[in-house]
């Protein structure tokens, strides 16, 4: 995705550098979908190289892909764009494995991409909904660390939730 810029555009380009040295050249309107970058652009001004030592190139690329889609779709004021975005978001999260999902979520949180955090946390929430305790543990590979009897006690207190 590190692009050769077609310099005829009037939009400003920003260079983003990931932890593994991979750089991305993106339009300002795209990168500023991320709150952290937006703040820096507003504070610092001028064309900059922005280093992001906490995000790996692979995930930064995915985050920027999402930003690009949303920035583009937001420029047209069609009413259908909401639907397009929703459909695209659905595709975006559909086949994410858990590892990628959490890496993306932490990257999005780190970069203050509020909308993306919302999308990704919703994905995790959907993996919890309607599941029994054992199924939740299985889904997330969590081992129970309760003392014997402790879990039963909590269940007893909230038995309505387990019927």
């Amino acid at each position, binding site marked *: 995705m590190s692009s050769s810029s077609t310099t005829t555009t009037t939009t400003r380009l920003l260079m983003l550098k990931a932890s593994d040295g991979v750089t991305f050249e993106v339009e300002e309107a795209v990168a500023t979908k991320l709150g952290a970058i937006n703040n820096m652009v507003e504070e610092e001004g001028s064309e900059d190289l922005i280093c992001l030592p906490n995000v790996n190139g692979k995930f930064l690329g995915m985050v920027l892909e999402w930003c690009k889609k949303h920035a583009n779709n937001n420029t047209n004021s069609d009413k259908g764009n909401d639907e397009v975005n929703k459909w695209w978001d659905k595709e975006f999260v559909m086949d994410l494995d858990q590892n990628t999902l959490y890496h993306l979520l*932490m990257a999005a949180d780190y970069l203050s991409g509020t909308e993306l955090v919302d999308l990704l946390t919703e994905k995790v929430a959907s993996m919890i909904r309607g599941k029994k305790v054992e199924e939740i543990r299985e889904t997330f590979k969590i081992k129970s660390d309760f003392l014997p009897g402790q879990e039963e006690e909590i269940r007893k207190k909230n038995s309505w939730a387990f019927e």
Partner: protein
Amino acid sequence: MKRIRLASYDSQKHDTGNKFQLVLSVMDLPEEVFVIILLKLSVRSIISCKCVCKTWLNLISSPQFFKLHMAQARTSLLFRDGDYYVAEPEDGRDLDFKYCWCETKCNRNYCCASCNIRMSSKLKCPMHKTRVMLSNQDDQYSNVSFDKYTRLINSCNGLVCLAESSDDGHGAIYNPTTGEFIILPQTLNNHENVTLFRVSGLGYNTKNNDYKVIRIVQRNDGSVEAEVHKVGTNSWKSVGSVPHSAVRLVFPTYLGGALHWAHDKYMKMATRSIISLDLDNDKFESHPMPPINGKETSVGVFGGCLCICGLHWKENLNYIDVWVMKKNGDWESWTKMFSIKVHDRFPVRGFGYYLPIYSSNGALLLYRITHRVLLYYDQGWTDVKHVHSRDFYGFQVICHTPTLISLRDIVTRENM
């Protein structure tokens, strides 16, 4: 070229760069991110999460979490037909009644094949005996049967106020989410000559973090006063006389730090009013009702504002007029929102209370108390649709926001 590094906060926490080689699990997410996930879940799912592991249990049990949860908790419905049921959508979103009605012309009395809240999978909330009762009450109440609290008075911040049907002052506070309840203290002081104790509502005082129950006391000589009980204490305190010496304070509605009641039926039009109690200073106020047609008026909340529904008869049909106080606290700002036509098979002229239970995006759910049925109205419709459920006959229903607030904490004043 100027270079900047974005490593502004807690780089360890978000160190996915170096952890790239690692496989992350949900447990690696920063706490505040995991909280966002939890807040998207229904209370029922949150309680399941509590049982998964210690880390989640501690997070969900923390006062910080239940404050966050309460701030964004969504309104649902609490039914009582002997047992208690919370109708909470599984995805934690607003209740949607769009598909939850039958045409009133429907031949069958009760059918609702496309019912969206699936009341058949209702959540059962049995009342649990808990250890939160004040210690000196333990013996006194250990054999109390909770079936006798048959009246749903109201719900405030997820706590439900219950009372006996006879007006002897017996009542309880119940959190259907945590299963806890406490019994209201029996009256001890000065109750000779009392003809009536009526538990009339539960409210919350934000300033002191107190939950308060209000009851009306009427004596042989006709005098009427109100008493306030702070939940967690063992006494009632008189707060003086009630405007219009009102005994019948109906439709308790908690909004904006005050409890509001309608006071109408047996009074002359001139004194028909809304009585409010400010829970900060325990002072009553009386406000005239807006110019509503008809006599039978109820109080509730519509779109975050105090609202009044009044029934009136016009051209052989009943109409419900819905009035809203546009600006909370501004008693001049009453505005008539709409007038809803009610098709009844056997309409009774201007008779019946229609209680506004729940509103969402301009749509309104009404509970017809006399017939114990639910009606749904959406803006632009000319009349109401009936909401039927196979499972509920003769139920009571109130608006209720499930919260994780613990009665134990209120009693012991911990984590408040």
